């Protein structure tokens, strides 16, 4: 082990980062469930891996769509079977089956993979925001478990920076990519970001309507009115979100109370008619009503769009928006890859210079050792004030003498010749003696 100049923590020379994982692309949803780690299982598999002397750091990430084990090892094998063994043992899986469903990468590829994961480039829905928090949680758990050290501290802290950079410098996570969240985005475009104080009318008790109600609720809407052919089905929704329940015949009276109306009945004919909407708009004194018609065939008469003070969007409009947003995210992927490339290069540069930091420290230490040796010889014959002055003088002299060689070594490091610089310094100053 050699001493790290910055942290005074011991660092392991020639450490490799490896990752073994499975995701929605490599494994079925059933297998992902089987292979998923609970919190206790994460601790168990970490413990198993760290028992091996060549494994020094471990972080386990396990979500509904992926499970991954990141490890820092001084081994240099093509594929680390130990990780598979540990995973299979903790989850009672067949090793061969696990091997067939997982991917494995190491060193720069592993670093790049981590950055791709945290940027959500590798997610089922590209640009989703949850993954950043999930990686942070995995890292926090590893910190509490003392299974991270110098290397993974640096790597994961940098990965959080990458995640933030991607989200602030690209449009990768902008725009809704599901029908229900696109509906909410549209409503926000008209009524503002927060729906606190807004009344939402849900017509029909279908799944899409419920999903849209969920997203509207997340966006701050808390006042709901549910309209349905039968009150029984609407009761379930009212129990979940709170609010009043009415049959469809009450639409014409209660429509004026609603700022947002989401309609998704299975009716063959329109249930929201132009006349009803005109009366509602008049009663609202010009306050707009925002309609989302998710039904097919349409629940809202087409002519309602012509009424001033109304905005009507159908499922086709929402699909159009979702399609455009997906395209935007695709375009942002190139910019994201560029960011990842830059950041991987920084990590590689840092790693290559780790050796150099150690060498510079050793060089200083060696020269200071020589000075101490010579001063010790004079200690008996000189008064303490003179010794003090001599010590100050020699420290200053060492600093000045070493300034040029250290600056030269650092310059070589900056130019990508860190290993060469370390080798030369070792040879010239016999630092290994």
């Amino acid at each position: 082990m050699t001493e790290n100049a910055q942290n005074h923590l011991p660092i392991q020379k020639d450490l490799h980062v490896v990752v073994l994982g499975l995701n929605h692309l490599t494994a079925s949803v059933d297998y992902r469930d089987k292979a998923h780690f609970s919190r206790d299982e994460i601790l168990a598999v970490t413990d198993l891996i760290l028992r091996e002397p060549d494994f020094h750091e471990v972080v386990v990430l396990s979500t509904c769509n992926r499970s991954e084990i990141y490890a820092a090892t001084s081994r240099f094998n093509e594929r680390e079977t130990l990780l598979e063994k540990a995973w299979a043992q903790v989850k009672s899986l067949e090793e061969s089956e696990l091997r067939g469903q997982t991917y494995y990468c190491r060193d720069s590829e592993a670093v790049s993979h981590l950055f791709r994961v945290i940027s959500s480039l590798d997610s089922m829905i590209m640009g989703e925001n949850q993954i950043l928090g999930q990686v942070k949680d995995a890292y926090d758990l590893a910190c509490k478990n003392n299974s991270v050290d110098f290397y993974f501290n640096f790597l994961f802290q940098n990965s959080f920076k990458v995640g933030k950079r991607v989200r602030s410098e690209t449009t990768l996570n902008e725009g809704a990519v599901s029908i229900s969240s696109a509906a909410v985005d549209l409503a926000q475009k008209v009524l503002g970001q927060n729906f606190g104080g807004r009344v939402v009318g849900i017509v029909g008790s279908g799944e899409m309507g419920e999903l849209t109600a969920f997203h509207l609720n997340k966006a701050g809407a808390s006042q709901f009115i549910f309209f349905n052919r039968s009150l029984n089905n609407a009761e379930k929704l009212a129990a979940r979100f709170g609010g009043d329940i009415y049959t469809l015949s009450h639409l014409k009276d209660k429509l004026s109370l609603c700022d947002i109306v989401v309609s998704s009945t299975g009716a063959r004919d329109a249930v929201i008619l132009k006349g009803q909407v005109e009366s509602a708009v008049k009663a609202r004194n010009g306050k707009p009503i925002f309609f989302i018609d998710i039904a097919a065939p349409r629940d809202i008469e087409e002519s309602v769009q012509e009424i001033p003070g109304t905005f009507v969007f159908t499922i086709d409009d929402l699909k159009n928006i979702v399609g455009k947003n997906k395209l935007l995210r695709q375009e942002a992927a190139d910019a994201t890859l560029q960011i990842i490339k830059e950041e991987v290069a920084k990590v590689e540069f840092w790693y290559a210079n780790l050796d150099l930091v150690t060498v510079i420290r050793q060089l200083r230490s060696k020269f200071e050792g020589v000075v101490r040796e010579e001063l010790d010889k004079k200690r008996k014959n000189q008064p303490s004030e003179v010794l003090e002055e001599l010590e100050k003088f020699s420290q200053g002299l060492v600093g000045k003498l070493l300034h040029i060689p250290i600056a030269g070594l650092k310059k070589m490091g900056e130019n990508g010749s860190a290993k060469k610089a370390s080798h030369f310094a070792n040879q010239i100053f016999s630092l290994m003696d």
Partner: protein
Amino acid sequence: MTKAYYILFFHVLGLYVLTSVMYWQLFFKEETRLIVKSRILLYSSVASHTLLLLLIALTNHRCPVATPGEGLLFCAWMVALGHLTSEFYAKSKPWGIFTLLPITLAVLLSLFLSDPHSPSPEQYRGAYFSFHIVSSLAAFACFTISAVLATMYITLFKRLKSKRFDVVFRTLPPLENIEVLETIWVYFGILFMIIAPVIGWIWVRDHGGEGMSPKEFGIFTALFLFLGTAIARAFFRFKGIRFAVSIIVGFGLLLMTLALNVHGF
């Protein structure tokens, strides 16, 4: 002073041009990585602009509104300040390009209408005149911002109605937010526009003037239009697209009045 004035002037103009380019990219190309840089440029532009006005004031020992060019420069500064405040408090995506373009244009035009050496007549050095002009320019700045916002409202409204989901649709702030902002600026504009003629009336009276010029008539008409719109909004739910259109009409009337005045009407 002239050298310092021109150096600072072109520095301000250059900054505004750069800022406009940055905000254009931010809005139309959705280059979100430019958000921090564009905000820094905006603050730098406004800070330099403030210095320029201070330079004129300190050198000439008067309020920097004595010539049409200075008035334009002062008005542009107020619009820039207003936009900065809006963007800061609204926390909406930077839509600065819509205010920066008129600001940059106004600063450029002021170059042709300014003379840093111009000694202003004695009656223009008085406090009443200065406050009158400053209030008038503040009113004009507020109405400019509200007109820009009203244009944005109409643009987004039309896109929502025609279901055109392009980059402009994506990057404009919500209708509700725009309407709140345009209302605030209309109210401020009305306030300043009431203060300005009151002070102006005192100034004119003290200098033996009387009657109302065609420019003043035009401005009062615009004021009543804005006032009527504000009252209608507050009490008669005169909101949404109709409110936005009224603002544009009022601002158009204001511009026409000033343009006719410049041409000696």
